[in-house]
């Protein structure tokens, strides 16, 4: 079984890499896994629909399972039946899938389109290729939004992430994600730890206690969220004054729905999102996916996506092509997390460190929450 699968995969690779692929060798349907909502819609409009229009007879089915992608791919692998063709995951999940052999290794230069000026794909993506299996699409960030009409009279609007911890200056509820990642780092940063020492401090028991103690100062005022849509909702209802979520969600609340919300970009936590191809796909399905990826991750397509959602395209060559919002006609560049004005003080979250410490810290964090 395994042998045939590998054999098929290798043949498919050579076939896909060569130019002699004919449409007859490719499957006519793809199952693409993503997150649903506005993000999936942006992918659909920017590259899936254009691809389908250029390839009549091909169909694409969406599966909104990215949140459980690792668990489900592992289960599919155990059952020996991979039903997905292309999966959108965050960087840390792509590393885990690649490590476990559940995702296929990608030769970025061979399989993906070069930039228009001839820069190879791997140079164009640069450092964002965090694992051999990962094809980056966007840079997004977890950052804060606050209600402009709830800023106390006579006070400056919040400008630092530490204002989240300042109940005296900015009273009211806050919403934070129900997980230790990002929150612990922000807490230590606001407790006076230098940015480059955060993980060293967090690696000790005292550091964990210190972070939890800092979070403890606002614990009574925190609403903990687990879905990205919760913070925009809480802000729109006036339930919370300030809250963290993905920057694209806040953009849509501000620009598309006109809510009285403003962005706080200080110490935004950068993360990546991209494609992985499950390991062990049959030759015809793999050929179709690779054909799609070559088109769907090129410079223009990634830039097009930014017209629908405020996430930064992962290719350096796409940045100058970012234009206006497809419906509102506003300039998108200033709303990107990667815009220099927004990225003056960012937090780079350490995937390796969290891979090691996540289980332990999560137990402590959850125990702290439950008490």
């Amino acid at each position, binding site marked *: 079984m395994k042998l045939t699968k590998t054999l098929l995969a290798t043949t498919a690779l050579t076939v896909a890499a060569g130019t002699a692929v004919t449409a007859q060798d490719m499957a006519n349907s793809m199952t693409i896994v993503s997150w649903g909502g506005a993000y999936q819609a942006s992918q659909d409009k920017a590259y899936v629909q254009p691809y389908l229009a250029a390839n009549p007879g091909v169909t694409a089915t969406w599966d909104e399972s990215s949140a459980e992608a690792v668990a489900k791919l592992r289960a599919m692998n155990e059952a020996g039946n991979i039903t997905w063709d292309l999966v959108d995951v965050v960087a840390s999940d792509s590393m885990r899938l690649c490590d476990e052999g559940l995702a296929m290794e990608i030769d970025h230069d061979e399989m993906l389109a070069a930039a228009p000026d001839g820069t190879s794909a791997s140079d164009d993506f640069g450092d964002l290729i965090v694992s051999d299996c990962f094809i980056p699409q966007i840079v997004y960030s977890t950052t804060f939004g606050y209600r402009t009409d709830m800023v106390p009279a006579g006070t400056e609007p919040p400008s630092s992430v530490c204002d989240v911890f300042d109940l005296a200056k900015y009273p009211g509820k806050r919403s934070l994600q129900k997980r230790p990642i990002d929150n612990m780092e922000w807490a230590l940063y606001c407790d006076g730890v230098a940015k480059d020492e955060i993980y060293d401090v967090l690696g000790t028991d005292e550091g964990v206690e210190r972070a939890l103690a800092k979070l403890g100062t606002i614990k009574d005022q925190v609403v903990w969220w687990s879905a990205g849509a919760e913070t925009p909702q809480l802000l729109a209802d006036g339930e919370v004054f300030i809250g963290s979520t993905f920057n694209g969600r806040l953009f849509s609340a501000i620009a598309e729905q006109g809510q009285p919300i403003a962005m706080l970009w200080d110490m935004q936590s950068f993360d990546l999102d991209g494609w992985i191809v499950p390991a062990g796909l049959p030759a015809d399905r793999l050929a179709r996916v690779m054909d799609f990826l070559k088109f769907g991750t090129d410079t223009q397509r990634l830039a097009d996506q930014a017209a629908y959602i405020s996430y930064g395209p992962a290719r350096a060559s796409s940045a100058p092509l970012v234009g206006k919002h497809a419906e509102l006609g506003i300039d998108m560049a200033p709303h990107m997390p990667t815009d220099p004005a927004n990225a003056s003080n960012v937090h780079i979250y350490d995937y390796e460190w969290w891979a*090691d410490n996540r*289980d332990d810290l999560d137990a402590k964090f959850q125990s*702290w929450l439950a008490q």
Partner: protein
Amino acid sequence: MSDSTHTGPMLAADGTPLKRSLRRALRAQKMRALALIAPLLIFVLLTFIAPIVDMLFRSVENQIVGNTLPMTVEELRDWDATEVPDEQVFRALFFDLFLAAEAKEHTKLGSRLNYEKSGISSLFRTSGRDMNDIGEVFQDALEEIDPAFEEASTWVEMMSGGARAEPNARLMSNQIARLEALEATTFSGDAEFLPGAAISDILPNTARAYAAFAAFTQFVDGKSVTKEEPWEAVYAALALDLEDPATKTAIASYAGPGADNLRQAAAATLPPIAMRDAFFESNKDWANVTFWETIKTYSPPYTTGYFLNAVDMEKTPQGIALRSEDERIYGILFQRTMFMSLMITFSCVALGYPVAWILANLPTRTANLLMILVLLPFWTSLLVRTSAWKVMLQQQGVINDVLVWLGLVADESRLVMINNQFGTIVAMTHILLPFMILPMYSVMQTIPPSYLRAAKSLGANNWTAFWRVYFPQSVPGIGAGSILVFILAIGYYITPEIVGGTTGTFISNRIAYHISSSLNWGLAAALGTILLAVVLILYWAYDKIVGIDNVKLG
């Protein structure tokens, strides 16, 4: 003589004994009945029972350590866990980890052990990458001595001992079995390569390493061993074999294929084998004895570790101990789940009983209309109903707005009714109410109204008539509803996740987290098993106290 007709067996019309003929008829009937339910039975077995049993099995299963590091586990058996293991253990670890890294299984083991000890994940991930470099030293040295060692054909001939050599089939099948365990599959077909018996006596490590390489190349990579240069681990194994003076003597008198190459290698000086230092250089955490303790503690194929974890305990070198205060969580969550499920059940009884009573005592027309009101929310999506409660209960929500408007609550001190236990109990009571009302209603419908009238005509007042006559007859409905609601409540996780905040979450939220996020399926299985056991115990207690015969659904 005429007695014999009486004492002999009774005969059926066709002359066979009646007993047998009856049994045959009954058996046929039973078989027919069984055939009728067979589709359902098979369906339930395959789609329900089997996955559950498989999942529960994961709560004790721990074969990954033994399958990934079989030789290391063997070497560690006599290790006394006081200081970092010796060179012997690290040599075994090198060969184990090399194969695991080739098969991409080492990070799975890393993640598994990281549940018990933070840091092991990166230990295996980073060192897995370095295995090639450690072995390459020996590859380079051997190829320097004799370029023939670069050739795949040299190796195949040397290790098979020539065309007519007696093969060591057992060694090969052991390595294939090991690879099958590692990859959790079965390979079909015969091995293309068999190591020679003579050469595997002289070079035991090399023969084993080469057999592992050959098995992997053929069955996993799907390539031919005759065309592939061996792994770096094979060269390291040869260097290891040549370290032994006895091997050098044996080689001197060996005449099989490759004997000359081997003699050349034996005569030269090879780099010293210091796997311990090489591992320390790869990652200094290998010198940390606590990591080794964890590997040893979790080396048996079955473990109680997940169950201990699920009750806030852990295995330490000193034995089983409670976890430190800041890591205990499951005890609190189990208690909370029980307490809140009971609260929800009582609220459902309190709210549902009058409704069921009215429904049962109204004329059918009106009762049917009201019944639709009970069922309507039942047909609405769970998520919609839960989110609706958010809109109702939040601080800027409908209820708070009304209270503020009425002047009952000041604007600054709006009530906190969501993201806590109260919110969860309210939302879940609403969602589970139909499961309480329906069985109560169908039981109450069967109670003749004349009993109440009879009680009253015999002098009972309203309360006594209800309490002594009506209520006891409605108890089976309460029982059925309570069991339904309680068991459903105990496993809920979407509603507590959305409206529970930090104090209103259930144990199922943690199970869901371990299934889909942390991927600690063993712990999730252990938590699920405990939850199942608790429900069964409560069911048993319920049967003892109330009696399950008293439960009626209609």
